[in-house]
């Protein structure tokens, strides 16, 4: 068919590249101001913690009797604690520990949860029953008591033991969420259609279903990151988390257990408390941002 010249319609110039669902989500996320601000904040906090040893030449665990409980000054911006350790330096090194624990726990948990959730949801039936009963079993462990007991057993093994203990006890919720998402996703016709063109079941699971539940996984991961940082600070505050010598935000908060410190020496506990709150808040904003970005019904 030859279109006559006077009938040709001027079309808008085609876009360079079509946006995938990922592309659309990214675009939506970038436009979400609180989420982007939070992302930048989290990035800055992480970067500062990572480069702690470059930014401060004070040893965070060195006890200095001359500096005990000095208030903020030009030399020590946020003063020092009751052992004479510089607060700013401890915040930097503490952030390193807290974020390391948060990120590692999140990675381990989301890996376990994705594997168990996906296999359980996709294969269903007996596999599902076994894995889900195991999940229930793990869920029924009283978290705090179990952590305390394990920490008592592995008393000197430090941060690594804590990461493993927290991770092993916390993957259940995410695994269930991912499983239910996979179950609903596998009912879609594209799964049947993929099998009908000769795709192996394992490949259908990994290549077709997993990318479709990735949004759920990412949102879960963000929420987990926040929860894990809270778990670390909580445990450390109680004295069952990171070993006392290692600085972490939770350990720093421990000082607030002393009423005298709590009333008079605000610079010892307020900065780590504030930093924890802001970090958790920003992670939650990022999580909300992801949720919005992946939700096709949100209009942002």
């Amino acid at each position, binding site marked *: 068919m030859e279109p006559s010249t006077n009938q040709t319609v001027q079309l808008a110039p*085609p876009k360079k*590249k*079509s*946006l*995938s*669902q*990922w592309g659309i989500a990214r675009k939506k996320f970038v436009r979400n101001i609180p989420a982007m601000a939070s992302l930048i904040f989290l990035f800055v906090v992480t970067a500062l913690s990572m480069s702690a040893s470059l930014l401060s030449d004070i040893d965070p665990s060195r006890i200095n009797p001359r500096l005990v409980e000095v208030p903020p000054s030009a030399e020590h911006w946020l003063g020092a604690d009751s052992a004479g350790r510089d607060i700013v330096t401890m915040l930097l090194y503490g952030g390193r520990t807290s974020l390391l624990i948060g990120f590692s726990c999140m990675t381990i948990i989301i890996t376990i949860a994705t594997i168990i959730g996906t296999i359980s949801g996709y294969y*269903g*039936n007996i596999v599902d029953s076994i894995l889900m009963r195991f999940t229930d079993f793990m869920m029924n462990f009283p978290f705090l008591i179990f952590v305390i007991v394990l920490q008592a057993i592995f008393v000197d093994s430090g941060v690594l033991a804590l990461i493993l203990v927290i991770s092993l006890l916390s993957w259940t919720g995410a695994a269930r969420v991912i499983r239910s998402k996979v179950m609903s996703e596998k009912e*879609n*016709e*594209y799964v*049947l*259609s*993929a*099998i*009908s*063109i*000769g*795709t*192996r*079941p394992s490949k259908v699971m990994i290549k*077709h279903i997993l*990318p*479709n539940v*990735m949004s759920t996984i990412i949102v879960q991961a963000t929420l987990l990151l926040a929860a894990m940082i809270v778990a670390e600070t909580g445990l450390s505050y109680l004295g069952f988390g990171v070993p006392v010598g290692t600085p972490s935000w939770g350990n720093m908060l421990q000082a607030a257990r002393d009423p005298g410190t709590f009333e008079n020496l605000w610079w010892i506990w307020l900065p780590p408390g504030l930093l924890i709150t802001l970090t958790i808040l920003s992670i939650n904003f990022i999580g909300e941002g992801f949720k919005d970005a992946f939700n096709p019904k949100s209009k942002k």
Partner: protein
Amino acid sequence: MSQEQQDQNVLNIKNLHTGFLINDELHHAIVDVNFNVKPKEIVCVVGESGCGKSVMSLSIMQLLPKINSKISAGEVLFNGENLVQKSEKEMNQIRGKDIAMIFQEPMTALNPVFSIGWQMREILFNHLDITKQEANHKAIDLLKQVGISRPEKILNEYPHQLSGGMRQRVVIAMAIALQPKLLIADEPTTALDVTIQAQILELLKDIQNKVNMAIMLITHDLGVVAEMADRVIVMYAGKIVEEASVVDLFTQPKHPYTQSLLDSIPKMDQTTDKLNTIDGVVPSLESMPEVGCRFTDRCPKAFGDCPLVTPQLAKVNNDHYARCLLYDECYSKETSYAKEVENV
């Protein structure tokens, strides 16, 4: 039919029974289905919703969920090989390559997170040993074949950017990618509007002529049947009730169900207030009668024997089969004997 003729058929279904487990009991959705598809033939399977049409197509592809369904008897012979006994691995070799399938809902048959190109390459990679470049060339070729203008552009687009008709074209392009011998189309036009429907059917017919494949078209639209079919199989409640060439079926339907279906088509030259319908619904799997004709309750011509004697599918005319007690041939030997005894 001689053995030799049978061997030439693309598909031979013999005595197929497929059932679903409901409350630990096996209820058959398909009972004693026998038919065959010759090369290059278009066979339409017609029936109401719930008649077992889709279950049959899934049985052929071995795509039924293994947890709660089972092919309890019968054979599905594809080129002489029984698919029921094939392992999952062997079936994967056949699916997509020798038998392809088009699904009803083009909106969901494509994976939303991958580009059209990715999905078209997947079927090629599954069965051929080719590079990405070659696969892309082949995909563009295929998209041209199904009448998509600018295929290079479509390749980089995502399913949500295409209209329903376009998506169904893509699905068809994928289905014909490896020139299958049999294409099973499960209500391929039901989700599309009428003008697109006509285009898609035209396209299917066109392609069928070009690549010499047989099509098994499942539909409940008799208009589609008239347009497309060489031969028609009418199903009711899991059984074939009539099988005939398309001309015979429309000019002299034998089974009351077929007659009712044809009566239900609205006619332009008729002025009535009410459209003809068939009263009642297809019985559910659990409430399927054990003996007797399954259409009895809704049949305008039912008589005394209907709920008591199970009719057999029998030849009532040249190449015209029906399953109805109105025709003496359909009394099987045992049941006709029983009838005689009762009459005495």
